[in-house]
Structure formats: C-alpha cells, structure tokens
C-alpha cells in the first residue's frame, strides 16, 4: 500500500467490472459497487469525464426519505437535454478489503432518464475522495481526501 507522509493513500478496495454486466460492449467501461442508503449494493458506471452524477430514478424512488431533494435543474446528457432535480443521497463505497467510505453525494435525478443507469461523476462526489484503479486486477481503491 502506498503511504504518503506516513498515511495510507487509500482506505478501502473493491472489485470492479470493466464492462456492462451481461452485455458485451465494444469499449471498456468501469462499473463499481455502490450502496445507496441502506439498500442492497448496485453497480454504477465511474465517469470522471462527467461533471455530475446521475441516479436512476427508480433507485431514487425506493430510497424515499433518505433522499434530500434540492433545486430543479437542467442537464445536457448523451441522451439529450433533460430536466430534473438535484438530490443529496447517502452513498457508500463498500470494501471487500479495508474500510468502506460513506458520503452524501449530489446526484441529478430525472424521470426521463432510463432505468438501470447510474453514473458517478466528478463534481459533488468523486472530487471529495481519493480513488485509483488497478486495471490488471480490476481493483478500485478509494480513500479519504487529504
């Protein structure tokens, strides 16, 4: 484990899938495990090129009062411009080695967004933590920021 000034670089690790499960794509993608609230873990696509995270509206509905609804917003997506709402959602990165990490992440939620797709974007989520990938071993490392 890399240590910087005596501190571990990351606190936890989980396995990731380098393609959409059960669906062979031509390009590699990174799907990592996340847990929303106390619900069962899901797979979400890691997308550092996306400014914001997007939560599947069916998942948001099930979370009920765990979701804090914020402002209405409009977002340009690869599926077109969509209207929706920003929400703060408790997110845990489960660890199969080390310690899990938890935060209140900001997500865009739109009823027009297709089911099954959750994206973890940079602002309001990934910019709050450290992370690293080991593509040969399909390991996702994560940790507290400095």
């Amino acid at each position, binding site marked *: 484990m890399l240590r910087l000034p005596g501190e571990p670089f990351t*606190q936890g690790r*989980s*396995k990731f*899938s380098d393609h*959409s*499960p*059960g*669906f062979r794509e031509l390009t590699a993608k990174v799907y990592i*495990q996340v*847990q929303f609230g106390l*619900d*069962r*873990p*899901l*797979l979400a696509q890691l997308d550092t090129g996306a*400014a*914001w995270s997007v939560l*599947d509206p*069916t*998942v948001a*509905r*099930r979370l009920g009062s765990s979701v804090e609804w*914020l*402002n209405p*917003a*409009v*977002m*340009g997506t690869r599926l077109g411009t969509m209207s929706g709402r*920003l929400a*703060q959602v408790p997110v*845990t*990165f*489960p*660890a*199969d080695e080390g*310690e*899990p*990490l*938890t*935060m*209140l*992440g*900001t997500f865009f939620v739109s009823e027009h967004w297709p*089911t*099954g*797709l959750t994206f973890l974007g940079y*602002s*309001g*989520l990934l*910019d*709050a*933590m450290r992370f690293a990938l080991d593509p040969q071993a*399909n390991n996702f490392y994560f940790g*507290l*920021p400095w």
Partner: protein
Amino acid sequence: MYHGPATEGSEDGMAEPMKVPYEETAEEYKARIADLFEQERVPGARRLIDEALQRYPDDPGLRAWKKALAPPEVRIGGARDKDRTPEFHWLDAHGFQYKGQWVAVLGDRLLGHSPDYGKLNAYLDELPAEEFPPLVVYIQDR
C-alpha cells in the same frame, strides 16, 4: 430651461448621465447559477453562489444550490462487503438471459430477477438474511 434634478447645475441644460447601482436579485442569481450548472462550469457556479449568499444569506434556493454544489464530507463507515468476482462471473455467463431486467446475484446464485426494481427488492426483503446482501444489477437490453 429646467428639466428636473438631472440638469441641475448644468450650464447647457444637458442631463448628466446617472449611475444607478444595479443589484442582482436572488432569482437572477439562481438563474445564472442554473445556467452555469447546465454548462458544467462548476468553479464559476461555486463562486457565484458564494457571492449571492453574501447578499441573500437566507434565501432557501441559494442555500440549496450551495449544498448541492459543495464537495461532500467523506467519512469511513458503512457495511463491509465481500469480493464480488463470483457475481461478475455469473453475470458474464448468464446475464444475457435477463436483458431488460434487474437481477440479484449472491456468489454464483441468482436470488431473483424482475424488470421492476421495487418488486425485486420487495421479493428479496422476504428472503432469509444472509451474511452479505446480493449484488443487484440491471442488464442492459441495448
């Protein structure tokens, strides 16, 4: 000729340009912040929120924007999980049979599947608890 206060003290009676300080309203700030959000200009949006909150510290919409765009606080905590490699192997081998559905997989076992996320979870809630929860995955159909 007297035209009003703007020409007072003016020898030629021409009005002096008046500088009227323009105060942006909270609604105008929110519209600009929403535009910056849509354009993915995050640092600019954050700066504008801070500026707006100096003028309108109690505006609930601005405070909501502040909350939405602030980097979240992270802490260690949450459930410990298992290595999900067996679940990924199962999904690679069998997932294609469940396109357009949510599947719940634990190890190399399929616990349930449904096109409806809520119904699948309601079904899983009735099952005896195991050491770890299943991984719930939506199988893309296109």
